């Protein structure tokens, strides 16, 4: 890698862009919003994701990191990022103006159920896609009820929302494993008994163990309509590297999460 500094602007590349950060806003323990100006004419749907990487390998960060579109607001693309490892810590450490490669939108978005109640179930930073999803539901499913069921390990980890964000949800149930904020226990526990509700459509995003548990509970309860946003390691995000495989429910083999997902019907996956 011997590109000049500052990096040469990329040629017209469809969905491959170099964008400079507008800002990084902390909103809870290790979690922040990464904000970019929305490129003219560029759109994306709730549940789609972007690959974000340094313009050149930097401090051991080379590959893109996949992030769901978190919110589209004030003509900005916003990504809710939790700093866990090398790359996310690095992203959180950046200042406004920093150039980043932003490739996308990628993947299959949430489809919107024609049901009166939309239950958005978030574990940890799995909260990310639900702001953009809630806005879209408000616009395309007027008069329906949008509920956010949101769990974190502990109070400090809860993402703080401004009034606009909080106002997207008709109901907001917060949970913490340690009971330090909202109801004690996991979101999945909290939902026990409700999963058969014929009026409800379910949208879930969170750590794999939580989604596995929820998928099991839903199978048992016979839940009809559910969509989960899953995670797997990705090198490209657009179907060429074959990294992002999840075992398929029908027979052997895998699905490519970046193409057949990240949003899937939990019944498509062998958990």
């Amino acid at each position: 890698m011997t590109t000049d500094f500052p990096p040469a602007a990329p040629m017209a590349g469809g969905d491959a862009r170099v964008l400079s950060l507008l800002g990084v806003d902390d909103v809870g323990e290790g979690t922040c919003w990464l904000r970019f100006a929305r490129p003219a004419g560029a759109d994306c749907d709730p549940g789609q994701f972007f690959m974000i990487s340094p313009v050149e390998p930097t401090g051991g960060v080379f590959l893109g990191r996949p992030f769901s579109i978190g919110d589209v607001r004030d003509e900005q693309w916003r990504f809710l990022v939790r700093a866990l490892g090398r790359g996310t810590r690095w992203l959180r450490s950046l200042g406004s103006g920093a150039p980043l490669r932003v490739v996308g939108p990628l993947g299959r978005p949430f489809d919107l159920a024609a049901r009166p109640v939309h239950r958005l179930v978030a574990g940890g930073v799995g909260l990310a896609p639900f702001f953009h999803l809630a806005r879209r539901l408000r616009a395309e499913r007027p008069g329906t009820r949008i509920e956010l069921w949101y769990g974190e390990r502990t109070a400090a980890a809860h993402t703080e929302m401004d009034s606009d964000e909080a106002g997207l949800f008709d109901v907001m149930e917060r949970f913490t494993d340690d009971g330090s904020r909202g109801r004690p226990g996991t979101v999945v526990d909290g939902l026990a008994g409700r999963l058969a509700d014929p009026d409800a459509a379910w949208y879930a995003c969170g750590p794999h163990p939580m989604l596995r548990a929820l998928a099991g509970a839903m199978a048992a309860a016979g839940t009809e309509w559910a969509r989960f946003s899953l995670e797997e390691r990705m090198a490209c995000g657009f179907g060429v590297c074959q990294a992002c495989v999840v075992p398929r429910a029908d027979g052997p083999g895998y699905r490519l999460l970046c193409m057949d997902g990240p949003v899937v019907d939990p019944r498509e996956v062998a958990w």
Partner: protein
Amino acid sequence: MSRLAVRCGPLDLVNPVLAASGTFGYGDSFQRFFPLDALGGFVTKTLFLAPRHGNPPPRIAETAAGMLNSIGLANIGWDRFVAEKAPAVNAIRGTSRMLVNIAGNAPDEYHRIAERVEADRALVACDGIEVNVSCPNVKEGGTNIGCHLGQFRETVRGVRAATTLPVFVKLSPNVADVVPFAACAADEGADGVSIINTLYGMRIDVDTRRPVLGTGSGGLSGPAILPVGVHWTYRVRAALPDLPIFGIGGIADWRDALEYLLAGAQAVQVGTAAFVHPTAGPEIVAGLERWCAERDTTIERVVGAAHRAGELADEPVWTG
């Protein structure tokens, strides 16, 4: 862009930049980023006769300026490629050359798929075959065919016998010396070689205390390996000046590509860089065009130039 036009053995290319196997799908995945004919050509994901599911995840790990993969040559198999991919790709590829990359679980499987490629020429408008020999020989206890000269020769011979298409053999760097493998490919009538495939590597997750990849080890690629690919390209060019070479390994910008061309490659293939930077290939083409124009030269004239002022490949390498 005739400054960039170059012949790589029997192939004439509008420019010397191709997309590498396993990083470009079957040719129909980059439409959203650029038109296929922005590149001189592309190499398909390795195809086996029968489809392969590949290895259990995780299949990738990040490394300093590189990555590991243990995809396991997951592919849709020859028949589905012919039925589902070839028609569309034939239609959109324009001036870009398509090489079909093939492999098997043992030398005879290579021969059989090569026969199919030959037989299906009317259906798949491919310009040549690239043979991925970096595969365990399942029938021989998993010795890597690309690291074992006997099995390598047998594999190349059969492929050569099976088709009149241009045949390029993609060499593994996981050997003591790449030159004898290149020489063997030439002996067996290959039209050229591709240098290099991935290096063996492993990362370990210090939290789980296990290898990151589901299979333990994988193949190292990306900018980290560029000097290894340039070294072997230079050595093979020095030993076999007339053998066409695709230079591969760690190419991320036009300067990287130029290093391979100067070392003796007629053209280059870009792989990993396109994951993080999908338009890397076309940007390299533009950079080479600019560089040639500024110096009023052509790629043809630049190929191998690093050898002209005196050969440095005859000496043993004293490092340390």
